[in-house]
Structure formats: structure tokens, C-alpha cells
């Protein structure tokens, strides 16, 4: 338990110390919020769908969580290059504890980043359905964070060089984000696109957040939570397995 805690604490401390990184990582979601939120707003309204900002705010929060959690995979490569990973791997503790500590640390950081963006959307004019909805939505946000931190751990354990991570960002993270229904409604999509959105775990995450925050879920919040839990279990097991196979 102590081991998990100290490795979790390490991730959080490092995050809180790197202010530049905090600011930089908020840039992309803010750009989406400002440019698309206000730029596409009039079109969305004309189509009779109401406020686009209300619709996409949960999507941008989901995006922040996805990106931050996946970047915790980079932290692993960083540790591999700078050697700290070796220090943890020769310690007399089960590797699964190390993996859980790291993953929870990455997930915590992702939730904090999500909370910051949530605050920004409030300033921009986003209004959740009720005050009670917010903590429930954040439980779902925490689930999203764990799902993708575990995925990042699995990937970070499997690739050895920074170049590999660039591939992951381009061919995994960006599609996960664009196919998640964060930017467009899931109703009436072409069959192929609809199929892709349904295999993207982030779709259910954002749908769940949207369901709790503005009461407009496509699949239903309980279904979303079940899917996230299932995918989370699979990814955590995959992450622990890949992590146990690391050779230093």
C-alpha cells in the first residue's frame, strides 16, 4: 500500500512542480473550445440542436483527460531513458504495485487537468444541469482517466523509444479523440463512422459525462459506466502484464 502511495505521490508532485507543462497542456483544449465552440456555434444552433458550447464542453473535458492520461505513457519512456524505472524494477516489491501506483498517479493528474478545463468552460458560459451532477460527472471522468492511464502504461511498457510514442499519438490518440463524438452528435452518422465511434471507449466516457452534466446521453449513463468499467479492467490487466515484461 505504501509503495502504491509513494509512486502515486511522485507523479502528482512532479506534475505540480512543472507549471510550464500544466499551462502548455491546456493550450490544445482551450483552442478547441474557443475556435470550434464559438465558431461552429451558430451553425449548430441553426440546425436546431441548441447551444454548441453546452454540447462540446464535456467533449473538451474528455479530450483533456485523454491527452493527459496518454502523456503519462511518455513519463514512463522518460523514466526508462533517465533510469529511474530501473530503480523501481529492482526493488523487492511486486511489479503490479509499481504499475498501479504509476497508473493511479497518471489518472489523478488527468482528473486535475480535466477539472481545470471544466472551470474554464464554466467561465466560457457552460452550465451543468445541476450542482449534484458535477461530482457524479467527475466519477465518470475519473473512470476515463484510469482507462487511458492503464492503456498508456501498457503502451509505454511495450515501446522503447520516443519516436514510437509519436506514432501512438498520431495513430491512436488523435483517432480516439475524433471518433469519440466529442465534437458531433452520435445520431444519424454514416454506418462506418457509427461503427468506429462504438469501438472507441472514449465515446462512452464523453457520453456519460454529457449524460450527467447536461442530461443528454446517447447510450444512457449506466450503460456508459458498465462499458468503461469493463474496458478499464481489461486495460489495467493488459498494463500490468506488459509492465511485468519490461526488461532493463
Amino acid at each position: 500500500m505504501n509503495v502504491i502511495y509513494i509512486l502515486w505521490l511522485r507523479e502528482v508532485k512532479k506534475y505540480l512542480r512543472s507549471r510550464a507543462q500544466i499551462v502548455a497542456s491546456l493550450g490544445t483544449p482551450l483552442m478547441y473550445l474557443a475556435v470550434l465552440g464559438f465558431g461552429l456555434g451558430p451553425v449548430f444552433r441553426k440546425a436546431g440542436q441548441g447551444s454548441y458550447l453546452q454540447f462540446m464542453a464535456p467533449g473538451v473535458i474528455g479530450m483533456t483527460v485523454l491527452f493527459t492520461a496518454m502523456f503519462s505513457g511518455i513519463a514512463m519512456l522518460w523514466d526508462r531513458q533517465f533510469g529511474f524505472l530501473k530503480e523501481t524494477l529492482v526493488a523487492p516489491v511486486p511489479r503490479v504495485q509499481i504499475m498501479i501506483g504509476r497508473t493511479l498517479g497518471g489518472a489523478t493528474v488527468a482528473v486535475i487537468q480535466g477539472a481545470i478545463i471544466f472551470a474554464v468552460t464554466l467561465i466560457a458560459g457552460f452550465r451543468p444541469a445541476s450542482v449534484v451532477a458535477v461530482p457524479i460527472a467527475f466519477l465518470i471522468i475519473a473512470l476515463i482517466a484510469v482507462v487511458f492511464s492503464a492503456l498508456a502504461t501498457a503502451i509505454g511498457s511495450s515501446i522503447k523509444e520516443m519516436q514510437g510514442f509519436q506514432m501512438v499519438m498520431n495513430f491512436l490518440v488523435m483517432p480516439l479523440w475524433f471518433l469519440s463524438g466529442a465534437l458531433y452528435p452520435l445520431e444519424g452518422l454514416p454506418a462506418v463512422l457509427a461503427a468506429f465511434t462504438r469501438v472507441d471507449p472514449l465515446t462512452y466516457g464523453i457520453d456519460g459525462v454529457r449524460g450527467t452534466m447536461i442530461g443528454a446521453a446517447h447510450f444512457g449513463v449506466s450503460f456508459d459506466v458498465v462499458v468503461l468499467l469493463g474496458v478499464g479492467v481489461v486495460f489495467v490487466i493488459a498494463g500490468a502484464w506488459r509492465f511485468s515484461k519490461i526488461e532493463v
Partner: protein
Amino acid sequence: MVAVAQLVRAPDCGSGGCGFNPRQPPLFKLQVAQTAKLQGRVAQTAKLQAAPSPTCSREDNLSENHIIRVQHLVRSFGTLIAVNDVSFDVHKGETFAFLGPNGAGKTTTIKMLTTVLRPTSGTLELDGLDPVVQPTQVRTRFGVVFQDPSLDSELTAWENVDIHGVLYHVPRRVRHERGETLLKLFELWDRRNDLVKTFSGGMRRRLEIARGLLHTPKVLFLDEPTQGLDPQSRNQMWTIVKNLNATEGVTVFLTTHYMDEADRVADRIAIIDHGKIVATGSSAELKQQTGTESLEAAFLKLTGTSIRDEEFSAQDRMRQISRVWRR
């Protein structure tokens, strides 16, 4: 400090006593049992009783007080045989040096003893335990400073030490007391709350060694610990390590290719080349054996004068990248 040391140390199984090793042939198991029974008696009796084994040198059979025993160790990577049938003992409390040119198999041997790498064949024993069979127990018994740095440079010196203490299950109070003692000893106490990225190479090395000693290990592995350090840092580092070696009785196992270093700090030296041990003994013995006057001359006589070209592996490339990143 000695009291603290005893407090932290895990219950001692005795060398060979509880290290039941299913990978060893039955004959050897019998020998180990016998040896364990005899431990309380006078050393001389034990020497007489120990059955001569054709696999060990005469000297190895006499060493009842070994903490590390390596027998017929082989490790190959594809077609390359990095370690080729290596056998040696390290005695309790001594400073033992692996001296060899680049690519001789020094690091590979350390990696196998520290549970990072599995041997292709052969047997290993550290404090009576087999690193392959009982990696977790073995890990509590050694501290290691790898060739590449393994500190978290975004954390402070103290945080690095503290995390290590938690990972090695050192109780909080002991962690703090011994951490303070060690950081003071290595002259890092004043800088304990500074981020490691602000440290010089020598300070980082000292911090790594201090951290490696926090859990009061029985063996301290130092893989080329002074590479890239200036003479002052090297001198200071060895003074402290030799001092701990004398006061705490920690066995020091180092690799190096600096002759003067091996000559000065090591009680015994094993010269390794092309994955094989070519000679073992004290510096004086090696000089005598080869009829040379300096250890360097002895070394060159034993290993030849040809230049070794290491193959540039993916790991070396990573190492280079990380050096660039570290500025």
C-alpha cells in the same frame, strides 16, 4: 549506526542454510546442508570436512565465508556469448573488483546477480539465496548503483532517498535516521531539498550510493561507479565507501577498468576478458603471478593489448540519447 543497521536488516538465514536451490544437482545440495551444519564449529574443522568438488578451485573450497558464489555462469545473447563459464566466490566483508576491458562481461554478470537478467546456465548464490528462484528476497540483500544513473532528477535528493526506503520496506523512523546519517556522510545533507537536476555528476553518484545503502544491504554492487568523475570526486567517494566497508561490514562488489582504482580499493581482483575470468587474486598476487611490477602491466599481460570494439547496441544508443538530454 550499527544498532540501526541491525534493526533494519532482515532476519539472517545464514549462508547456504535456507537457500534450498532446486536447480542445483543433488550432490551439491548435500554439500550445502553439511556445510550449514558445520557453521558453528571451528573454521578448520569445516575446511577438513568440506568435500572437494572438481568444479571449484582449491581456494573456493576453503572459503566458508562467501557471500556470493557463482558457478559455471553462462549468458549468451543470440550467438554472442557475453559471459562464458565464469566461477568465483566473493567473501563476506571484502571489496571485490571485476577488472576488464569494455565488453568483457562485467555488467552482464552484475545484472544476473542483481536479478535483472536471467542466466543462460550455471548457478548463482547471494547470501545463500538464488537470485533466479528468490528474486524478491535477494533484492532486499543488495544495493546497486548501475552504470547508468537511476535517480529521478525532477525530485529532490531527499525524496529520492525516501522513495527508495519505501520501496525497500524500511520503517519510517529508520528511513529518516539512516537517511540523515548517510546523506551527512556523503556530504549531501545541506543539499537534500534541492532537485537532483541541479547536482553535479559526482554528487549524483554519491547520492546513488547513499540511496543504495539505505536499506542496509549486505552487498553493494557498484558498476563502474567512477566513470566520468574527476579525481577529487573519485577519491572522496572511495574514502567514504571504504569507510562503510570497514564499519558496517558491507561487502563491496565493483567493476572498473581503472587499474589504479582496483589496485587501491580492492582486496581481491578478478580479471575478466572475453567473458572468462583469466586470473583472480590480490593486486600483489596478480603482479607476482605475471612477474610484473604494476597492476596495469599484469592486466595487459593477461588480457593482451588489442583494442576492443564494442558492438553499438540499441541500449548504447538510448544511453547516448539520454546523455544528450541530460545536457
